[in-house]
């Protein structure tokens, strides 16, 4: 992007935000320190403060769609197809906050117009979201032993949000989720015996998935958790939220991909399964059987492998040439290897 174009885009966004903060926090409120954070291609995040006259500044984050959002592509985009719009994502965070899940407040939204794409604005909380740092740094030493319990508790709370309170969401029960992943693999025209075994094994044991339907976060893992010195400070990145079996989230947080080398700690590299499940019960969830959790771990390993393959094929099909994306393709073998240790 040329410097000129990016300056115009920033100025347009600043004007929109100045208007909106004056509506939300009162006349005379302005914004300060608007700066783009992530260079991610799929979503933009921006940091800024709102300055209400005579009151404390509000540290905020905007998450919006990219300005040149393309039309949805074919199946090979994989999980991207499941992504929610920004208004629904922000609404899920508000609902989660209402049932006691630690999440940033979401004070307002942006409509798409000629100056900006659609987005939502959330409170900018203190803390760390990088999984590796959460596991390694001394400042989180006191937080780490509490995280598995807190993650279980938080999940039970958002899993229990009544369906009639939820906005319209994609519905992906386990059998359809299996078909979906199988179709993604088929679309690569690269027969894969390891993942095929996973589909077969999971399909034989569908009753272990459980039959409850509720809000699934969809990417509940170390890396999407904001952590401070005392523990879980916020659950982030709700854009893969959908209706399905909530236990999916508990299996996903346990897969080895999010342990960053701390393999003896099953939950995110920081905790134990027993703490996760105790926390789930303490948050109002059912007692989850180890067999069900095991089912969803196998599912999670498969899903991670398929995501890795999907990213590689984004490069291989020429959609987006990237040494990073094509290299992640080789990590599919990690999901395959892990699931093959878990099945019989």
């Amino acid at each position, binding site marked *: 992007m040329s410097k000129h174009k990016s300056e115009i885009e920033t100025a347009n966004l600043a004007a929109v935000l100045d208007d909106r903060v004056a509506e939300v926090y009162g006349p005379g409120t302005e914004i300060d320190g608007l700066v783009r954070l992530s260079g991610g291609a799929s979503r933009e995040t921006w940091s800024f403060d709102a300055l209400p006259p005579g009151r404390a500044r509000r540290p905020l984050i905007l998450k919006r769609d990219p300005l040149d959002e393309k039309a949805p592509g074919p199946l090979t985009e994989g999980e991207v197809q499941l992504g929610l719009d920004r208004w629904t994502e922000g609404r899920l965070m508000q609902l989660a906050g209402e049932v006691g899940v630690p999440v940033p407040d979401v004070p307002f939204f942006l409509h798409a117009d000629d100056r900006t794409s659609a987005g939502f604005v959330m409170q900018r909380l203190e803390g760390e979201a990088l999984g590796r740092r959460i596991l390694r740094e001394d400042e989180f030493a006191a937080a780490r032993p509490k995280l598995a319990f807190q993650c279980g508790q938080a999940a039970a709370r958002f899993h229990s949000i009544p369906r009639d309170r939820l906005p319209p969401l994609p519905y992906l029960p386990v059998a359809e989720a299996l078909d979906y992943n199988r179709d993604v693999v088929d679309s690569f025209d690269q027969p894969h015996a*390891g993942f095929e075994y996973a589909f*077969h094994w999971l399909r034989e044991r569908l009753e272990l998935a459980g039959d409850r339907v509720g809000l699934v976060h969809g990417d509940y893992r170390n890396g999407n958790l904001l952590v401070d010195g005392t523990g879980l400070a916020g659950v982030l990145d709700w854009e893969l939220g959908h209706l399905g079996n909530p236990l999916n989230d508990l299996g996903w947080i346990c897969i080895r991909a999010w342990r960053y080398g701390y*393999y003896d700690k099953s939950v995110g590299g920081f905790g134990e399964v027993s703490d996760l499940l105790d926390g789930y019960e303490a948050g109002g969830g059912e007692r989850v059987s180890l067999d069900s959790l095991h089912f969803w771990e196998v599912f999670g390993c498969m899903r991670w492998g398929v995501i890795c393959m999907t990213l590689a094929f984004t490069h291989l099909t020429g959609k987006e040439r990237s040494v990073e994306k094509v290299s992640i393709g*080789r990590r599919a073998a990690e999901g395959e290897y892990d699931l093959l240790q878990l099945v019989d």
Partner: protein
Amino acid sequence: MPTDRPNAVELVEAVREFLSDHVAPNVEGQLAFHTRVAINALAIVERTMAQGDEMDAAELGRLKDLLKQDGDLQALNGELARAIRAGEMDDRRETLLAHLRQTAEDKIALANPRYLTKRG
């Protein structure tokens, strides 16, 4: 293949060393990250050149035993995937799983050998 030294292995090694010794220390941010990714990709190529043929031969031998048919790796892997989906391998689960586990372990030995040790 008609070549003098440096052979292909030596060229890939030289490029990896160049990225590692001269590029990586002089870049930062996203470019430093992508340089590390590129170095890792070349290391995968080097390990494949060293061990790939032997692994392929072993995998092909296992597939022939398992499926009781002849064919090349691609054809037999296609046949195995089809047979698993059709439930035709259910009576040979133990040998099937042993084969799949060995194959996955070999893939990781090429792609990211540290993953096979307890702490990565």
